[in-house]
C-alpha cells in the first residue's frame, strides 16, 4: 500500500475535529439535522437544453442571479469570520511567458499539522463515516441548495424546508479558498457518496456551470489519488476573470467514425501543454456531453487511474487529465526541488493556477517551473494512448485511426448511448483495440 505525506488543505472549519462526533443541536448536514432544516434553494430548469445555443448564453442571466447569490453569500460568510484568511489580501500575479500561469502567494492555506494518512494507490475507496465528511459541516458554511427543479424556469426560495424525502445537494464555502468565491458543490450530501463520478452528479456539476453562465466560473474535480482531500463526493468551483493556461492550449480533434457517435460530442487531444489530456465539447444536449465525460471518468475509476476534471466555458468545454504524480511521489521519483515547493498538482494547478506557500517560490515563479512541475503529473505518451483507448472503448466512440470491421461494432454504440452505465459494466462483446 502506497502512502505519501500530502500537503494538507482544510476545506471546512469542522475538519480539524475529525473523528469527534459532536452530536446534534449543532445544525450540521447530517441526517440528524438537515431534513428538519431550512436552507435557501436554487432550483434550476431541469430539461436538458434542446441545443447548445450561443445567443446570450455566454452572459450570466440578465440579473446575474446565481452569481449574486453565491458571491453575496460568500461575502456574508467573510464578514462572519468563517474563512481562515482573507484570500483577497494574498498577492497574485500572472507569470510572464507564453501561457500566463497564475501564481498566488498564500502562506496560510496549508495547515501546520500532521496530515491524515490516505491511500493514494486506490482511486475507489469506500466511504468511511468515521473520517471527516461533509455531513459534519455546520450549516453556516452552506450557501444554498442547488438542485433540479420542476418546470421550465429556474426558481429561488430563500428558505425552503429540506424535508424527509429529499436528497439535497448543497453549495458550501471552502474555508481555505484559492480565490474569492471558492465553493464546494456536494451532490446528495445525505447519501454519503464516496469521491467517485456518477452520471447524475456530473450532470449536476455541468448544470451549475451553465447556470452561472460566466466563462470565468469553472468547476473542478479531483479523484482520490489525484489529490482529493476528502472521500465524500464533491466538486470545487470559483471565479477567475481570465483564461486558465490550459484553456488557451491548442487542441487536435480526434476524428470519430461518423454515425457511431449520435450525441455529436467532439473529443480532442490537448497539444503543447505539459499535462496530456482530452477535451470534450459539443453534444446535442448538456446531458449528452455529461454522459460521455462521466462514462470516461467511470472507465478511469474502474481501471484505478487517478484523474482530474476541469469544467470550463460555462459547461461547454470539459478537460480530463489522467495523472500519475502521487504514484511517482510515493516511489520517490519526483525531484526534491519540486517537492519542496509543496504544491499538490490537483485540477487547479494542472489548469495553470498555482498557490505557492513560500515567498521565495512566489518571487522566483517561472513558466519553466510550472511546466516542470506539471510535466511530472502527466502520463507518458504511450501510457496516455493506452488510457485513451480504454476510454474510447468504454464510451463507444470509435476513433477513425483504428480500422475495424463494421460487423463487430454493431453491439457497441447502442449500449453506450444508453444513459447510465452501471459502475462495473463494460459493453459486452467490445473489442480490445491494440
Amino acid at each position, binding site marked *: 500500500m502506497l502512502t505519501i505525506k500530502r500537503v494538507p488543505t482544510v476545506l471546512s472549519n469542522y475538519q480539524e475535529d475529525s473523528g469527534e462526533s459532536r452530536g446534534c443541536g449543532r445544525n450540521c448536514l447530517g441526517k440528524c439535522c438537515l431534513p428538519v432544516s431550512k436552507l435557501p434553494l436554487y432550483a434550476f430548469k431541469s430539461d436538458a437544453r434542446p*441545443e447548445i445555443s450561443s*445567443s446570450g448564453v455566454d452572459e450570466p442571466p440578465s*440579473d446575474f442571479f446565481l452569481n449574486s447569490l453565491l458571491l453575496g453569500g460568500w*461575502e456574508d460568510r467573510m464578514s462572519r469570520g468563517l474563512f481562515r484568511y482573507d484570500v483577497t489580501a494574498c498577492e497574485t500575479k500572472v507569470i510572464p511567458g507564453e501561457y500566463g500561469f497564475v501564481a498566488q502567494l498564500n502562506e496560510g492555506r496549508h495547515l501546520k499539522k500532521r496530515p491524515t494518512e490516505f491511500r493514494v494507490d486506490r482511486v475507489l475507496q469506500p466511504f468511511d463515516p468515521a473520517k471527516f465528511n461533509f455531513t459534519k459541516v455546520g450549516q453556516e458554511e452552506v450557501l444554498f441548495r442547488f438542485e433540479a427543479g420542476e418546470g421550465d424556469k429556474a426558481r429561488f426560495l430563500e428558505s425552503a424546508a429540506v424535508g424527509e424525502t429529499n436528497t439535497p445537494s448543497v453549495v458550501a464555502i471552502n474555508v481555505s479558498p484559492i480565490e474569492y468565491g471558492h465553493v464546494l458543490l456536494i451532490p446528495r450530501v445525505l447519501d454519503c457518496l464516496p469521491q467517485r463520478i456518477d452520471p447524475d452528479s456530473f450532470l449536476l456539476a455541468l448544470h451549475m456551470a451553465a447556470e452561472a453562465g460566466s466563462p470565468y466560473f469553472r468547476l473542478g474535480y479531483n479523484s482520490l489519488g489525484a489529490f482529493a482531500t476528502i472521500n465524500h463526493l464533491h466538486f470545487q468551483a470559483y471565479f477567475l476573470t481570465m483564461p486558465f493556461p490550459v484553456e*488557451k492550449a*491548442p487542441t487536435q480533434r480526434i476524428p470519430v467514425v461518423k454515425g457511431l457517435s449520435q450525441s455529436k460530442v467532439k473529443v480532442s487531444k490537448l497539444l503543447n501543454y505539459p499535462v496530456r489530456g482530452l477535451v470534450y465539447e459539443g453534444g446535442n444536449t448538456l446531458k449528452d456531453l455529461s454522459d460521455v465525460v462521466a462514462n470516461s471518468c467511470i472507465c478511469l475509476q474502474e481501471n484505478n487511474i487517478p484523474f482530474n476534471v476541469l469544467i470550463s466555458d460555462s459547461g461547454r468545454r470539459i478537460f480530463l487529465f489522467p495523472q500519475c504524480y502521487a504514484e511517482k511521489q510515493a516511489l520517490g521519483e519526483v525531484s526534491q526541488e519540486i517537492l519542496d515547493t509543496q504544491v499538490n498538482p490537483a485540477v487547479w494547478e494542472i489548469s495553470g493556477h498555482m498557490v505557492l506557500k513560500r515567498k521565495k517560490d512566489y518571487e522566483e515563479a517561472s513558466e519553466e517551473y510550472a511546466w516542470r512541475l506539471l510535466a511530472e503529473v502527466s502520463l507518458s505518451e504511450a501510457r496516455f494512448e493506452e488510457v485513451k483507448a480504454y476510454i474510447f472503448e468504454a464510451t463507444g466512440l470509435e476513433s477513425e485511426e483504428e480500422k475495424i470491421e463494421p460487423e463487430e461494432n454493431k453491439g457497441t454504440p447502442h449500449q453506450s448511448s444508453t444513459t447510465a452505465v452501471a459502475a462495473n459494466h463494460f459493453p459486452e462483446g467490445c473489442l480490445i483495440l491494440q
Partner: protein
Amino acid sequence: MVALTIPSIGRRAENTSPPSAVAEVMAGCSRRLIDQSLTARYSDWIAEALDEIQGCFLITDPGVAGHPIVFASHGFLAMSGYSREEVLGRNGRMFQGPATNRRSVLEIREAIREERTLQISLLNYRKDGTPHWILFHLFPVFGVDDGRVAHFVAVQVPIPRRSRSLSEARCGGARGRLFGACRNEVRSDCDLGCNLAADLFVDVDNRGLEAEESREASEQEKERASDAANSILSALTQYSKLTGRVVSSQRSRLAGISPLSSSLILSLGRIKQSFVLTDPQLPDMPIVYASDEFLSLTGYSRHEILGHNYEFLNGPDTEVEVLHQIRQSIQVECACTVRLLNYRKDGSLFWNLLHVSPVRNASGKVAFYVNVQIDENAKSDGLGLSPHMRQLGVVGAVKVAVRSLSLCAGPSRPSS
C-alpha cells in the same frame, strides 16, 4: 413561502430570429445610448461616411453595458441576412453557434479584455441558421483624451471554400473579384449567368462545413480585411475631430491615466444595482465609477459626479455620527453597513441603506472602496434575495472583477 421565478430575459433564446417582446423593450430603452454612441464622438455625419465604405463590419461600444453593436454596415447585413434593427443593441456573440470553435471565442474575449487587435478565422451563423467561415479582424479605437477604448471595430471577410475547381472553370476571369467579396459586391461584378455567388455562400452540406476544424484565410482576404480596417479607422479619426473627442488606433501616452480598463467597466456594467467605486489613493477619494442605477437613484448624470467625492449625497439632515462611523471604517480598511438620510439632485430625501467595503486588487492592497446603495422605500425586485444579500452580491462581484482584472503581467498570447 412563495417560489419566485427568475426572469430569463434573453438568456434561453433558442434562435436568433426576432427578439422577444421583453427584449425589444429593453433594446428600446438603450436605443438612445446606441444611437448616441457614434454621433456623440464622431458627429451626425458618421453614419453616412461609414455607409460609403465597402465591406462587412460592425462597430461595438464597450462603454455601454452588454458591449452592444452600435453600427452594422450594409455589407454585413447583406452577408448575415439580418436587418439593422435585429442587430443594433445586441452583442456580437449572437452570430456564434454550436459549431463555432470555443477556443476562438476565448481568443476574441481575451482580445477585447486586453484591448488589442486580433485576426482570426471564425465560423459564424447567418439569420437563416446556415454557418459560414469568415476572417474576423478586430481592433480597438482609443479616445485620445482619456485613453479608454471608445469603440471596437470588427471587420469580417468571408472565406470561401477553396477546393472547387468547378468554380475556377466557370468563372475564370471574374474569379479575383468573386473571392472574399460580400454578396452585394459579387452580384454587381459577376458575369451574367454565373450563379457562383450563390454557390460560394450557400453550403449544400452544412454538416460538412461544421465538421471543418478551421479554414485558413488567404493573403488576399487578409489584405481586404486590413484595407477595410484602415478605411474605417480613417473615417472615425477624421470625424472625431469634428467633435473634439479625437480617437486614435493607439492608446495615447499623454492621456490622463484612467484607473479603469474597459474590461473592468464591462464587468462592472453587468452588475445591475446602484453602486459607486471611489479611489482612496487619489486626493479627496473621488468617485471613479458609477453604475447606471446609481444615476437613476440620485438623479445625477455621470459627468456631474465622476471625480467628485461621494459626500454630495449628504446634506443638513444627514446624521454626523453615521458619517463618522463610515470614515472610521475606511481608516481601518473595514466594511460597514449604515442607514442614513441622503439627498437626490432635486433635493428630495431618501433613506439609504448604505454598505461600504474595501476592494483589493491583485497586489493584495486596497485599490477602491465600493459603496452600494439601497433606497429603503424602493420596491423589492421580487427576486427573493434580501436587500442586504443583494448588496453583498454587488460587493462580491466587484471584488472578483477588480482582483482578477488587475492581474496582468502584460497580455499573454495563446500559442498558435
